[in-house]
């Protein structure tokens, strides 16, 4: 008679006995006798086909019967047979991920890459990535992550698609102008890959909602265009323990890095604050809307960002953690700088007021604008409007449209000369200075009747017909 040791979880089926003696000359015979005496044990040990379940191990002494003679392993009187349940688990579910035929075909070019394979593709499908901003950088990031098969994508943006976005935000076309960016982005990536889930957040990311949103994701991809949101995304990622794949662009230059990434040894790399503990003084670094950006640049940099997201998820290759990549589109020069954790930076414990911290608003209030066409219509219709030119006197002498000259530096002191009871069109050379003048007048003096002439006097000059119409 051999002895079978019953594992703790199954003792309720053997009247709490931890040992049972059985007959039989092989493992199969002994187990059969055991399940005959304790029928409730059977479904826990034997599957429908009569085979031992895969998560049950049978040991004879300290040896697995898989290494002996399987079920036909001989049993003697002194044999001690142990039934051992498999003990395993994990925190995520990528191993249980399966692919339909269509998905297999779609991802075939990934699956056949040596070192990537089905394992990495499963991790992509199980992954949850939050893309903050669906603009210039967000466009390629969302397109490539969706195409690659990232199974769960969150999109945060509060903005509406505008004509001026289409020069670089390739997610959108003319039919989306005026629609919310998250809805337009969702429709676009769903048509690209119907096998993935996406969640949209048609809101500004703030200190109130950032942790709640970010903690639902594995990886954050930061494609924001302003300092308050960049610090917010960084700090929230650090608090929530999520890697933050960062990119930013300005004029002809782009940057990429991976922040707050914990490597296989358990070491967490630097974050944005190790590089820039505090923001630059307000106004020193303009954003894209003020400084401009070459439209193809976010395509290049956003694609690199998507590549880093895929590496972070799959663990394939070496991420840019601890390194900071800079690309100059004009000279085609690239630099990869080493960055490290700074000992003296304070621990990030809670989110703060980032607009106050940076001294700027995350979202500038939109000012009213008119096109040259509309401006001409107003003039033709005989509407009484005041026109203000905020350029310098020398520029005014070269070319003007008969406007009242109030150079930008003097708008505050001469605000009294600006009408409050009719439409006032403000222009400069290209539209930048006039928008500053309008902001200043609105904030300091409460004007609500000011319109920025889009493209400035340059746009007027380019339309020779219109030039005549406005009698230049």
């Amino acid at each position: 008679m051999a002895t079978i040791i019953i594992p703790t979880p199954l003792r309720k089926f053997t009247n709490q006995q931890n040992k049972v003696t059985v007959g039989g000359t092989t493992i199969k015979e002994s187990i059969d006798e055991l399940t005959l005496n304790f029928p409730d044990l059977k479904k826990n040990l034997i599957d429908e086909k009569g085979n031992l379940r895969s998560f049950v191990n049978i040991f004879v002494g300290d040896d697995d019967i898989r290494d002996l003679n399987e079920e036909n392993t001989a049993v003697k009187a002194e044999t001690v047979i142990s039934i051992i349940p498999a003990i395993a688990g994990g925190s995520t579910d990528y191993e249980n991920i399966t692919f339909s035929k269509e998905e297999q075909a779609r991802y075939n070019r990934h699956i056949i890459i040596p070192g990537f394979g089905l394992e990495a593709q499963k991790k992509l499908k199980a992954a949850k990535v939050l893309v903050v901003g669906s603009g210039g950088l967000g466009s390629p990031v969302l397109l490539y992550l969706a195409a690659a098969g990232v199974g769960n994508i969150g999109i945060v943006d509060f903005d509406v698609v505008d004509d001026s976005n289409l020069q670089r935000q390739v997610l959108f076309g003319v039919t989306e102008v005026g629609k919310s960016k998250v809805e337009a982005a969702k429709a676009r990536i769903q048509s690209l890959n119907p096998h993935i889930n996406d969640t949209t957040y048609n809101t500004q990311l703030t200190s109130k909602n950032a942790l709640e949103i970010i903690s639902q994701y594995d990886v954050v991809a930061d494609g924001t265009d302003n300092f308050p949101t960049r610090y917010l995304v960084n700090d929230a990622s650090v608090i929530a323990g999520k890697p933050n794949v960062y990119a930013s662009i300005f004029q002809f230059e782009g940057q990429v890095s991976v922040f707050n990434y914990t490597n296989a040894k358990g070491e967490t790399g630097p974050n944005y604050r190790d590089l820039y503990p505090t923001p630059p003084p307000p106004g020193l670094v303009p954003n894209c809307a003020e400084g401009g950006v070459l439209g193809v640049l976010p395509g290049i940099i956003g694609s690199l960002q998507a590549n880093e997201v895929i590496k972070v998820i799959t663990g394939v290759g070496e991420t840019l953690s601890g390194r900071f990549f800079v690309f100059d589109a004009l000279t085609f020069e690239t630099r990869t700088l080493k960055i490290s954790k700074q000992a003296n930076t304070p621990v990030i414990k809670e989110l703060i007021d980032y607009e106050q911290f940076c001294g700027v608003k995350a979202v500038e209030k939109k000012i009213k604008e008119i096109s040259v066409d509309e401006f001409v219509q107003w003039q033709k219709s005989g509407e009484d409007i005041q026109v203000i030119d905020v350029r310098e006197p020398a520029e005014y002498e070269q070319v003007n449209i008969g406007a009242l000259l109030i150079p930008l530096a003097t708008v505050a002191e001469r605000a009294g000369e600006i009408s409050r009871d009719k439409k006032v069109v403000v222009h400069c050379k290209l539209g930048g200075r006039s928008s500053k003048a309008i902001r200043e007048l609105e904030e300091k003096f409460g004007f609500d009747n000011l319109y920025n002439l889009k493209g400035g006097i340059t746009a007027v000059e380019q339309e020779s017909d219109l030039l005549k119409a406005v009698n230049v």
Partner: protein
Amino acid sequence: MIKINSTIHRFLTDDALRTFPDECCGFLVGTETGEERVVEEIIVVNNAKDGDKRRRFEITPLDYLKAERAADEKNLLLLGVYHSHPNHPSVPSEHDRVVAQPYFSYVIVAVRENEFVSLQSWRLNDASQFEEEKVEGYLPESAESTPRPYPSSR
């Protein structure tokens, strides 16, 4: 209900933090009276997962056998299994569920780098679904280490 005193709690947290970013794993050993379980000691076991230890753990059959023998020798019971979820909530994954055993308490310790987040215990019900098991007897050493729900939201 499962009683985990502050010493046992510290052992569990220490193992999870030491093993970070990999998952730690081991056994809970103790006594059972009716519906009340008391953890007397833990047995730390090597995570034998061949592959992604950051999201997976596995205990070898031999380690199981040793743990059960040790419990039997001390006249104690193998009450369950603990493991950590680095950067994940202390909630069982589907992967945890499909391989889970009946009867056992599954204690999950959620940690971030250098920081304990939360601890919860789970047991399979008759429908093979996890139900949370109340954890008692843990006195936080300071307000700082009070378990808070993860993901934290404010």
